[in-house]
């Protein structure tokens, strides 16, 4: 599978999980949505998201490695998961 095809597969799945956790499809429509500033995601929601993404992609994501500033928008979260899935 080429990297492009793989990345195309990752983004929708991340957005599925993100929508499920946040309960809003706004996360699909605005990839630069400020999840924390807009009170869409809080600290517990972030931990829940980490667990759900770990399950969905079968990769181990350690909360202790998550800097919130790098997980602040849907686009950043997709990039972060892509990086981990590729490794």
């Amino acid at each position, binding site marked *: 599978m080429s990297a492009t095809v793989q990345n195309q597969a990752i983004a929708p799945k991340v957005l599925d999980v993100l929508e499920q956790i946040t*309960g809003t499809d706004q996360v699909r429509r605005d990839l630069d949505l400020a999840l*924390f500033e807009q009170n869409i995601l*809080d*600290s*517990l*929601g*972030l*931990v*829940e998201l*980490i*667990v*759900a993404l770990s*399950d969905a992609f079968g990769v*181990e994501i*350690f*909360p*202790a*490695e*998550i*800097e*919130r*500033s790098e997980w602040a928008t849907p686009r950043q979260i997709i990039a972060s998961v892509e990086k981990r899935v590729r490794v």
Partner: protein
Amino acid sequence: MDLIERIDEWARAAPEHLAHVSRERTLTYGELARRSAALAAWLLRALPDDRAPIAVQGHKEPEMLIAFLGAVKAGHPYIPIDVTTPPARVERIVATARAPLTLTPARVAAIVAEAGDAAPDPVHRVAANDPFYIIFTSGSTGEPKGVVITLACLTSFLDWMLAEQRLVEQRETFLNQAPFSFDLSVMDTYLSLATGGTLFSIDKDDIANPAQLYRALTHSNATVWVSTPSFAQMCLVEKTFSAAMLPRVRRFLFCGETLAPEVAAALLDRFPDAQVWNTYGPTETTVATTSVRIDGETLTRYRPLPVGYAKPDSRVVVLDEDGRVAVNGERGEIVIAGPNVSPGYISRPDLTAKAFFTLYGMPAYHTGDWGYFQNGLLFYEGRRDQQVKLHGHRIELGDVEANLQALPGVRDGVVLVKMKDGAPDSLAAFVILNDHSADSEFEISRALKNRMAERLPVYMIPRKFHFLSAFPMTANGKADRKKLAEMLA
């Protein structure tokens, strides 16, 4: 020697020892004693000697501790208010308490800086039966109510915990997770200051950023962990959260909400050298009145976990619907009597008269909590006032929750009423499972419903189950029922 004298004694014995660490800021015992005395002197000059409460609004800054002790050294109780409290609510608190002054960390710093190193005026401290702090909690009508805690109440609580927990003077570091506006923080703050320990505060920004939180925990060197069970549960999601991260932790002290057996079990597994303690008590009876060590045997024997035995100078009884003391195993309202019971709510004699009375010649408080005794141990079974009427059926949500939480595989559960067109429609459950199941949510829901139907009438079975890996938490670290309800909307 009273509490304040004790803290000042530590300042004399070891002035450079750290009393508080918050972020990059530190406060020694010497600084705490000197600055709080300077603030007390300023308060005595600035305010009439009427012992009116002083509001203190901030977060985890060292000036919060200076303000608390400064107020009580000047004879005023303090009202801790977290910085996240909406202004309108702060106004209501200040108005209800008739507080003439609201101190902030910046204001405290300025007052103390102005005082310089000048010898402070003689202090005029609170006496045993004077109010020491007033903590505002939400009232059932939406108006916050202020629980008055005297120095005698606080001393009763501290003396018990100090005798039971066998802390090592000047050697302990206490983790402070709860905001100072939540009385759980009284446990870590004053156990630490009374024993010459160091209080290590985790702040809201740490909690909001996982990497930062675990870095802070790693650097805390904590020996005594004090938090809500929800906070520990959140930390446990990280697999490296263990004795390797916190090698000095010897005690986990929990209060504020139900401790799930799975959380206790995971902690005992990951921290083999640490003890886990469950404690229970409403704000009105000074932080906690019962406690029990949760070890492997307790875990095997009891589901749900007990909340403990009463402290020696207090009486805890369960009263049945007719106000008689319930027999062993019989459910009723938990009533607490003892020197740790608050004199009441500030400016609310009506609410005070409803909840407080005299029992066994001691001040007593109707907790509104359901519970029962088994083998001398108290068990908590939810709130009296979460009673709902659903299609004519009278249902205690605490009852449904207790039955849900008792199911194998369920780590924690919250049950709420789903509204439709302004009327209660059905029950909805939010569930945290112990393990990730290969079954679909539909299949898991079906299995849970079947198991609950073995314990409850069908009208008490939640219609919809929502599965979460953690609950949203309130600022006080409890499961946030309001946010969960919003998820249902």
